[in-house]
């Protein structure tokens, strides 16, 4: 479903005299439909950059990212036009960032349920689904109508995960989704991800925590020293 070929990412800092920073070079791997690929490696090796290249928040410097869409179209996410990327983000590719980018003056319930608007889900059904996930991940009802800017780090992270999972995307990119969670929330998040996987979502996740990786991933991609190798977990 996803085939990454010789992917590289280099930043050219024009405002620092044209200094170049290489974060990814010659990365190749593939992910089958319904598979969970765990990405591991030390900090700063380019794990998050890899996810951002797939989501196209970063523009890849070289290589291809072939994605087989739900409509059976083979799309190169590295080069396809912005409109196609927006279309795929609306309908089938989700991304849970490392940190929640708080949207000002929008309640937690709205932050989460709005992820279902583009799928045409009715407002009442959107709210119900959001509340169900809030309950599962222990977000108290008193916070549902509050602005997430006032939430604790763990609450923000749970909200972030709920927002990413609620629309049940076809391909989900997870950047350290369980970091900063207490053991109970972590268990519940793992169980939610496992449920989504059973429903057929293909996932790529970045983890530092080997135990979580073992529970979720089918395959592991170790990006170390800018080299990668695929090993079965």
């Amino acid at each position, binding site marked *: 479903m996803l085939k990454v070929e010789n992917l590289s990412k280099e930043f050219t800092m*024009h405002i620092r005299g044209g200094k170049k920073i290489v974060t990814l070079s010659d990365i190749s791997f593939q992910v089958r439909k319904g598979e969970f690929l765990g990405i591991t490696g030390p900090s700063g090796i380019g794990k998050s950059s890899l996810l*951002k290249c797939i989501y196209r*928040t970063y523009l890849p410097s070289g290589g291809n990212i072939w994605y087989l869409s739900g409509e059976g179209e083979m799309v190169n996410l590295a080069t396809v036009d912005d*409109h196609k990327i*927006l*279309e795929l983000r609306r309908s089938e590719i989700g991304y849970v960032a490392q940190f929640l980018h708080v949207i000002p*003056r929008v309640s937690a319930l709205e932050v989460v349920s709005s992820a279902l608007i583009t*799928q045409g889900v009715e407002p009442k059904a959107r709210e119900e689904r959001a509340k169900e996930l809030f309950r599962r991940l222990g977000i108290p009802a008193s916070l549902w109508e509050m602005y997430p800017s006032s939430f604790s780090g763990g609450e923000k992270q749970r909200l972030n995960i709920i927002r990413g999972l609620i629309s049940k995307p076809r391909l989900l990119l997870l950047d350290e989704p369980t970091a900063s969670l207490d053991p109970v929330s972590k268990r519940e998040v793992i169980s939610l991800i496992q449920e989504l996987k059973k429903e057929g979502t293909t996932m790529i996740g970045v983890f530092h925590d080997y135990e979580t990786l073992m529970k979720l991933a089918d395959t592991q991609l170790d990006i170390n020293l800018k080299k990668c190798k695929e090993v079965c977990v």
Partner: protein
Amino acid sequence: MIAHKREPVLSVRGLSKMYGKGCPSCQTLTGPEFNNNVCPVCSSILALHDISFDLYEGEILGIVGESGSGKSSLVQCLYFDQDATSGEVYLAHYNEGKDNVLNIPASKKRYLRNHLMGMVYQNPVLGLKLNISSGGNIAEKLLAADLYIYEEIRERGKKLLEKTEIPMYYMDEIPKKLSGGMQQRVQIAKALANNPPLLLLDEVTTGLDVSVQARVLDLIKALQQELQISMIVVSHDLGVIRLLTNRTLVLKNGRLVEVGLTDQIMEDPQHAYSQLLVHSML
């Protein structure tokens, strides 16, 4: 499922705007590499040069750049406030996007402004008649869009004021007596009166205090979610662009230096000027 057509609502090709007579050096001696859009030979100002982009249904496109980069000139050319010097503009809702609307007669341009577009200016003086009531301002736009029945005009006016969160008792009040934030709301209500598929917003929150700015931005975002209008948002404030838009054009000295997804422009800007702009954010 909300349909997002693969056909653009608006297509702009090679749009240029020159103030002055121009000379062969205008194009070669101005632009970002010269950090200038004034021709050193003939002193003409090349406000926009060779701008091309597409806007799709339900999309919000941001236009950023420093003062004098051509942001406002661009939307003013699209709204026919100014005549573009050259280029092509196609609107999907006008003759199935077959005609370059820059070349159509003035009467047809008026038709497009009144039926297919809305514009909200930074300065309410440009978008409102400050000495006629808020309701009267909305009625003016509705009359121009061929709605002549008083009761219907009044009813539509009420609904628009309600949608833009303006208390009903302001309907018969002249905008001159309203606060800056309230005037912008009346402008937005007026711009939406004809249910336009395309809304242009030129620095609509500049000059408003922070809390008023936040409410106007929330209103625009809510209206866009509800009505799925395609919008072009001009702002020098990257916070506004990040909050509202899906894609962004970066202009400098009248040239388009970068276009991309808004999150990509914010996190991985490619052009030196875009990097400077992003790293200048507070």
